[in-house]
């Protein structure tokens, strides 16, 4: 059993059958993510990036190929709770307070009440929601709800964080603030992150590596290494630097490299 990779995806395909037609969402995709590495999956709608994330989370199974997480099968990693996950929708339970929502995974895995309380307090501080512990989700803004969802994903100190467009529904300003927070959080926790997005600046700002995907069938077309400095030093200044623009351009060219023939994608989320 090797712990060398946080995620190892090996020649994975996923074919959906819809009626008589079959749709190849992923075709022969291979990818590895190192422990502590921040990897973004980017591509137009229908390129299978969300499907790939769901395979890693064991919310879906590949048609061919293997997915291993920390050297185990994806299913075993899910049962062992090796990852935390956040979706585009916050998906909070509306009848639970903010604190109780964050405590949910700890409750399900039978953490003792005292440990639960102190961990929830820690997480509330981490996402800056100390004053909202007793609020209900419908009393919070979209950005605050998403912070609660991220705190919930971090509750059990996972070594791997899976995020499916978690900032997709937020306005630009909130989004940039959340990105800065996420970079800080991932640096502090040392967790590997697989981050699905269709925003180029977002992928560039957050990632160590950007995986560019193309649709129909979903394939990895380019993997771009970024060297924008250690996560802890990334701030608002970075967004205005020439390195940042150069990286954004590189990713954009990789995305559009397939030429003008990019078909209008079908959402497969």
């Amino acid at each position, binding site marked *: 059993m090797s712990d060398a990779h946080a995620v190892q995806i090996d020649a994975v395909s996923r074919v959906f059958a819809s009626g008589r037609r079959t749709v190849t969402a992923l075709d022969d995709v291979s990818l590895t993510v190192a422990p502590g590495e921040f990897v973004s999956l980017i591509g137009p709608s229908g390129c299978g990036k969300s499907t790939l994330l769901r395979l890693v989370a064991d919310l879906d199974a590949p048609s061919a190929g293997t997915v291993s997480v920390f050297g185990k099968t994806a299913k075993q990693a899910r049962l062992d*709770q090796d990852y935390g996950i956040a979706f585009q929708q916050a998906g909070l339970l509306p*009848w639970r307070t903010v604190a109780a929502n964050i405590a949910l995974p700890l409750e399900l895995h039978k953490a003792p009440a005292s440990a639960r309380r102190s961990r929830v307090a820690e997480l509330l501080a981490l996402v800056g929601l100390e004053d909202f512990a007793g609020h209900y989700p*419908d009393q919070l803004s979209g950005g605050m709800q998403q912070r609660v969802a991220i705190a919930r994903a971090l509750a059990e100190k996972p070594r791997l964080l899976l995020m499916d467009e978690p900032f997709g529904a937020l306005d630009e300003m909130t989004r940039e603030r959340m990105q800065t927070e996420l970079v800080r959080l991932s640096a502090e926790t040392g967790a590997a992150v697989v981050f699905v997005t269709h925003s180029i600046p977002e992928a560039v700002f957050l990632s160590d590596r950007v995986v560019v995907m193309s649709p129909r069938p979903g394939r990895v077309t380019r993997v771009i290494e970024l060297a924008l400095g250690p996560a802890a030093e990334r701030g608002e200044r970075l967004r205005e630097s020439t390195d940042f623009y150069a990286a954004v351009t590189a990713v954009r060219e990789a995305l559009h490299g397939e030429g003008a023939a990019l078909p209008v994608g079908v959402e497969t989320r």
Partner: protein
Amino acid sequence: MRSSRLSAVWRAVVPPVVFGVLLIAAWQAFVVGAQIKPFLLPAPSAIWQMIHQNPGLIWRASLVTGGNALVGLIAGALVAVVLAAVAAAVRVIDHLSAPIVAAIAVLPIVAVAPVLYTMFGAGSQLPRQIVAGIAAFAPVFLNTLRGLRQVRPIHRELMTAYAATPWQATRAVTLPGALPHLFSGVNVAASLAVISALVAEYFGGPQTGLGSLITSAAANSGYAAAWAYVVGAIIVGLVFYLATLGLERAVSRGRVA
């Protein structure tokens, strides 16, 4: 802030109260002015006099009818919730129960009261409680089942991602999600239970409840007395409605309506 909330309460309470008082005053003026015979319509003052003279009688009758409705409501709701849980979990039972539930929902339940009186004897309150229970069953069952089925996909995936056992997922997501539906079913069922318990008394049984007393008072030309018992019936119905509405509000706390 507090004063504005207070004035909001005033705005909500004062108009209906004023309207009610005016209506009763108009009724009184009409009955007295047009010299309406009491068997057609007694004056509010006469009804009030009856209530004032026999508060104990109305109170005891209300307890009997309200008690029957309460026993029926609780029993009917419990059976409905258990059956809904089973139907939500086991598809076959859902299919088997659907026609029976539909039949119960359309059955004129009070019509079975005479049959029940012969089954359990005319001295028993049980037939009335059964009638109220059957009336309460359908709305609670249907609402609860709908609530149990309305688990959002994202919550289901979250439970999978947390490797939650089926029972954990049920307790953390399905049951709390279904509670507001359950209690809005109970709210509907509460009024039905009171009406059914009351009307079941028209068909026989012990002469202690509001329904029996309304019929016997009317038969003995005690028109104002009959109306006094009707007032009691209205109050029992209101208490049931408001209590279950309060329950529904309480469990819906913190949700987007």
